[in-house]
């Protein structure tokens, strides 16, 4: 199982490095425009959680859920969009009222940009008026460690209000397009990075599982050998006894 997961991990990591470039490049626009998330009172935040459908990979899903629950205590005014079944079942127990959308079928394979686009289209159609969109995903640090982090996606108004907006000289009509596209980019980045984390965590989990099973196998092997020995000894004793008995006759 570890070998299977290892091969998957190389593929997932390659996907992650590529998608990271997409995400970083698309966020460059906001960085050079010096866009800051607007602190608007009374407006809800939209949080997109990037988990996946499959378990057996250690604590990466519950890490995300814990992050959300912590967030919920300090700032409860938000809506949740959940990608993946695992976080859905965890968060539906505590934060069911915040959930507005959930997606299933995420993370079967390396995420594609088409997936990210389809999700972004659904998210854009949400009726709520959100001050900002935050994407929460597992940041890949190395093969054994990862931590929940966020990518911010901005609305048109915040981009319009950013201090360096005038240097871009774009018409206002294209801004919704930019928003949709950068949301898809960020989602793609978050999904791929989350996927790589999941696979690496699963590799470790499988490694541990094999190790634990190894101990068990050793124990049972010894037990089996002892029993076999006992059975053989018993049979030998019977045969010899029989032979000696028939010799005397």
């Amino acid at each position: 199982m570890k070998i299977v997961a290892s091969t998957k991990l190389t593929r997932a990591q390659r996907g992650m490095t590529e998608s990271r470039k997409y995400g970083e490049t698309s966020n460059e626009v906001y960085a050079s425009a010096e866009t800051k998330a607007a602190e608007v009172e009374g407006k809800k935040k939209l949080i997109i959680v990037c988990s996946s459908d499959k378990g057996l990979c250690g604590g990466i899903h519950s890490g995300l859920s814990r992050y959300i629950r912590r967030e919920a205590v300090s700032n409860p005014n938000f809506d949740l969009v959940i990608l993946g079944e695992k976080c859905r079942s965890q968060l539906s127990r505590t934060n069911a009222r915040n959930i507005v959308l959930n997606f299933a079928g995420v993370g079967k394979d390396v995420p594609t940009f088409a997936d990210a686009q389809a999700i972004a289209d659904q998210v854009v159609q949400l009726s709520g008026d959100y001050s900002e969109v935050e994407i929460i995903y597992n940041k890949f640090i190395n093969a054994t460690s990862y931590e929940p982090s966020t990518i911010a996606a901005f609305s048109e108004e915040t981009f319009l209000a950013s201090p360096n907006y005038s240097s871009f000289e774009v018409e206002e009509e294209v801004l919704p397009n930019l928003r949709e596209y950068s949301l898809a980019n960020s989602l793609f980045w978050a999904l791929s990075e989350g996927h790589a984390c999941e696979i690496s965590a699963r590799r470790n989990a499988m490694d541990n599982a094999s190790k634990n099973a190894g101990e068990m196998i050793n124990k049972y092997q010894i037990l089996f050998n002892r029993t076999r020995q006992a059975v053989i000894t018993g049979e030998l004793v019977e045969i010899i006894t029989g032979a000696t008995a028939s010799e005397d006759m």
Partner: protein
Amino acid sequence: MTFAWKQAGLTYNRYLAVAARVVRRSLKEDKRLAAERRGDVDLRFAKWTNGKQGDMQNVADANAAAYVEKANAPSS
């Protein structure tokens, strides 16, 4: 600036996806099969209201329905 695809109710992402599909389909046979798999979307989703999960729907179908609805709506 108005775009033809915007009037047809498509979002920018959908517009990109269609363009990408056209490029993939024009590839040579061996490359095309691998590339077309990258364009497949097999997601399902559900809307939640008041802490209750709604019915699962296919994302691709729901998106298509939304485009049609937007295209039929009077353009402002």
